[in-house]
């Protein structure tokens, strides 16, 4: 505790000297915590937005993704992304308005960037955050190809992934509740 107080005071002093007091005070009114520099939080700052913000360098092809999927995903999700114990990832396009809708990456997900973000943070289920960024691009490309969304020779990277047109991109509407009229 004592040591931390000293180092906070030191940071503050350095900031005051080099940047002036108004803009540089890194701590808030309670003077608790330490500054979150981009370097310090890089390993946790992994979110990816639909506009591509947050996508890392690297790239992956459908062919590379087929290899990653067979080795790291197929055991749970099935050989071609369906028929396994875990969620079906392929098919279902055109079923959303039917009595038996099939929601998959291909039929339901509005953004390809969400696939990258989710696989990078949570899959494979038995070893999350163990794939390289290029492997995540590759397996994303493969799943999009299995769903007929990108061609067999597609290579995805930070520029191309946000541009992938998802079939259900326009399928989401805002909350319309309360939608009940009191009888």
């Amino acid at each position, binding site marked *: 505790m004592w040591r931390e107080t000293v180092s906070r005071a030191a940071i503050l002093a350095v900031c005051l000297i080099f940047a002036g007091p108004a803009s540089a005070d890194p701590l*808030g009114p309670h003077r608790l*915590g330490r500054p*979150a520099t981009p370097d310090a939080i890089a390993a946790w700052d992994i979110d990816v937005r639909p506009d591509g913000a947050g996508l890392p360098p690297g790239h992956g092809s459908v062919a590379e993704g087929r290899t990653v999927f067979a080795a790291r995903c197929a055991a749970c999700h099935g050989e071609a992304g369906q028929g396994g114990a875990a969620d079906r990832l392929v098919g279902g396009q055109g079923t959303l308005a039917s009595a038996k809708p099939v929601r998959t990456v291909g039929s339901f997900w509005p953004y390809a960037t969400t696939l990258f973000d989710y696989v990078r943070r949570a899959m494979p289920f038995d070893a999350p955050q163990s794939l390289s960024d290029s492997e995540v691009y590759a397996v994303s490309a493969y799943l999009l190809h299995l769903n007929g969304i990108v061609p067999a020779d597609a290579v995805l990277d930070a520029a191309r992934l946000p541009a992938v047109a998802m079939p259900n991109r326009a399928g989401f509407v805002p909350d319309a509740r309360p939608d*009940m009229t009191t009888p």
Partner: protein
Amino acid sequence: MPPSPVPLFGRRSFLAGALGVSGGALAAEGPLQVPVWSREQGRGVASPGYGVPSSFERLARKPRTVPAFPGAASTSTPHQHLHGTITPNGLHFERHHGGVPAIDPGQHRLVVHGLVARPLILTMDDLVRFPSVSRLHFLECSGNTPAWQTTNPAWTVQDTHGLLSCAEWTGVELATLLDEVGVKPEASWLLAEGADAAAMTRSLPLSALDGAILAYAQNGEALRPEQGYPLRLFLPGLEGNLSIKWLRRIKLGDRPFQTREETSKYTDLMPDGTARQFTFTMEAKSVVTTPSGGHQLKEPGAYEISGLAWSGRGRITGVEVSVDGGASWRPAVLQEPVLSRCLTRFRLPWRWDGGPALIQSRATDETGYRQPTREALVAARGTNSIYHYNGVYGWQVAAGGSVRHVA
């Protein structure tokens, strides 16, 4: 297989045991004896140091069906055996997507960054030094009550309404922390992220954060691991998934982040194939917990109908109970204090005449919203929306006293 019927008090109740006291059995039972526990010393203090329920109580959370992946599953609270409104910590429902992490609080960190003036990394020691609040609130998974398509007569209220619990949550108001980091004017959404193996993430508009707490305690003790130890977001009245457990990061942004949990999941599919997104509020709902599915009434006579009502939009203002399948309704008594976005216990004395009875409840909240019928819900949303089922729910008491759900 329907579960074997249980009496109203406890699993090994006096009603079912050798000391039965029901009217019919009383005469046969003979004069009262002085039992062994009155004739010898009981066990000493601190055995064990952290107390546990009586060995006659056998309550447990359980999943509705055996999960394929136990780390991506849920268990439910046994409301058919609970009283009042506070859920014991060990019985608070669970819903995890990557198991329950074993987090060392000394190594846990919260990062708050993005569109803020002063991005910070905070330790748990830092967090407990901020001004704190304690508030009583329910938490309900939006997947609670899987009645959109089918219901199973063997289901108990634990199966149908068990993804619901209520506790006193203590922690730092999110607003306090946002002041600490200085939210920039262009920020309008935030991303909350967990430290679990799912790195669970949800986006929230800053306008939906009324009453939000960074909670580190639950009913007076540190959060249970299943509830996010050592730190969770708690958002009163909103679908449970938003209250990110094992909270490690908050990022301020200017638009939603479109995570898997707000696109693929936790969106409500409508009959036209569109899906409602960001359906946060848990609307007014109630359910009778006694008598309820699986209970067995011993004989005609006096009973108390009792249940729970709640609304994500504020206070419950009334609960009506019907014992004739909705033909007539009577107002139940609400247990004070009735708190906003908190479970409210309702009660109504009832004399069972021994014939069939269909027991239902419907709640109204302070906005005037009244819990809808299943027909009204299905007419508006079809049967494929999975989440946010809050329809009136009924329990059929059969002539012999057994209680089952009927659709």
